[in-house]
């Protein structure tokens, strides 16, 4: 290839790219903002890219189209036969039985090596189905706020709501997160067997959506509905949190409420069902 003079735009872009790179170093030293850092570093990369693009364009102008034969294709049947013979005509007796035993041992080994996967669940006595079916609340357990305070019905305004947890649990981690919602008692239309589950219009439902487990945190007071921000399931607070819209297919588990001697809200039994999403072994 003849030595042509360096094309000016390429030189210019490389030069500016170098300047921008120095600019990035300077911006770093001066502790400038993220957009400035991004502008100089991105500018440097863009200019180098542009220089290379123009350069390659110049090279292409000198270049013809090239053709290359495609060297791939099936091997000739003769060669393939050689290969097949070399593979199978080994000094080892061609015993299907031995290969079968080899397969059996390796398969068993593979299956045996799956067992340590059980260690991924550290507790050896934990059975997922039982853990999921277990209620975080039991008879008499107090409902505590995030600040670990007990709750009285009057702590809530009519129309207000509050997230509470089983006494003694870690609010950050617990699946027992429960929504306390206060409505006017005459509005409630709880199922016949749950009429005594509310205290002064305060009802309690699991906060975990029964569709995919998201916290159903969006409470609209006037229609008294809970909306899940993840997949937009809507639950009716007044009639036992039955799903009204969206993909959720079973109600939020309800917690029967009662008052203890100090007038604090306590659970009057377990949740009406497993909290969170269903699984194949789920029993309502």
């Amino acid at each position, binding site marked *: 290839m003849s030595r042509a003079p360096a*094309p000016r*735009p390429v030189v210019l872009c490389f030069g500016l790219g170098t300047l921008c790179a120095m600019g990035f170093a300077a911006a770093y030293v001066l502790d400038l*903002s*993220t*957009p400035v850092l*991004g502008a100089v570093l991105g500018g440097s990369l*863009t200019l180098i890219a*542009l220089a290379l*693009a*123009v350069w*390659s*364009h*110049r090279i*292409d*102008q*000198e*270049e*013809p*189209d090239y053709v290359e034969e495609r060297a791939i294709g099936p091997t000739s049947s003769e060669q393939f036969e050689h290969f097949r013979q070399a593979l199978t005509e080994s000094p080892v007796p061609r015993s299907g039985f031995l290969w079968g035993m080899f397969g059996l041992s390796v398969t068993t080994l593979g299956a045996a090596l799956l067992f340590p996967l059980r260690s991924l669940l550290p507790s050896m006595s934990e059975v997922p189905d039982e853990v999921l079916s277990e209620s975080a609340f039991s008879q008499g357990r107090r409902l505590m*706020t*995030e600040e670990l305070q007990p709750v*009285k019905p*009057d*702590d*809530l*305004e009519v*129309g*207000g*709501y*509050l*997230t509470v947890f089983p006494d003694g649990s870690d609010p950050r981690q617990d699946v027992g997160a429960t929504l306390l*919602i206060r409505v006017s008692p005459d509005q409630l239309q709880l199922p016949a067997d749950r009429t005594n589950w509310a205290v002064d219009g305060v009802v309690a439902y699991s906060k975990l959506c029964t569709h995919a487990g998201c*916290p159903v*945190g*969006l*409470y*609209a*007071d*006037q*229609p008294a*509905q809970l*909306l899940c*921000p993840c997949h*937009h399931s*809507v639950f009716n607070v007044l009639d036992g949190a039955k799903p009204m*819209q969206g993909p959720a297919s079973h109600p939020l588990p309800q917690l029967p409420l009662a008052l203890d001697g100090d007038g604090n809200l306590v659970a009057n039994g377990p949740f009406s069902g497993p909290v969170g999403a269903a699984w194949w072994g789920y029993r309502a």
Partner: protein
Amino acid sequence: MSGRTRRSWVVRSLGLLAVIGAALWLTTTLRAGSAVAGAGTAYSPSRAGDTNLGQHVFLRDCAWCHGIQAQGTSRGPDLRSAGPAYVDFMLKTGRMPLLEPDATTEPHTQKYDAATIAALVQYVGEQLGSGEPLPQLSAGDITSGRTVFLASCAACHSSSGTGTILQDGTRVPQLYDTPSEQIAEAVRVGPGEMPPFGAKTLDDQELNDVVSYVQQLGPQQVEGGHPLDQYGPIAESLLAFLIPLPLLVIIILLLGRRAPRKESEE
């Protein structure tokens, strides 16, 4: 030929940069319609209002729907238990008065001056009825406010305060630029579909804290370039489809094509 090609390359490169610039500019201007809880007007405390003025304006503008004793009619609710905080909130955010009787209460520009609002607050909130008083705010702790906000407000207003939607298609308002007093009033009275948070679920100090934190939301949270409305993955994914991927496709459209061989000149 070669000169033209060279020039067209420069033009194309500049064009590319222009596309990047224009796209970024577009995202700045094309923000999804954002309703703002407060109308952004400067807050002036509505204290010690003139009762006569209040009565006058109430009978002139409000009694049509709310009744002369604020007892409510078929057109508007009973305001006797509304209280000053509620009245102040509705007027300051322009949700009231309605221009049409059957219009929906949506945030608007404030329609009365500060003195009139103060007068109405006193007349309706304190003379005709009673209820949640105007909040008395003081300095709050933003760390505690952030905790309260994430626990109690983020589910509807978004962690970023940008707001989201309700199932009926209405907008949970964006909280940026909302004066502290209106935030506090809304927390206490729970306007519209918002649940109220009484002093026992959120004590006065926590209210101060969360109001202080809300004042930190919005532009102050932006560190890394355009905020994309702080709307999260929906906006980010949309941007990914609109800018980098098309841009890179344009780049390979230009790069992948062979330059015509420079032989005509020789």
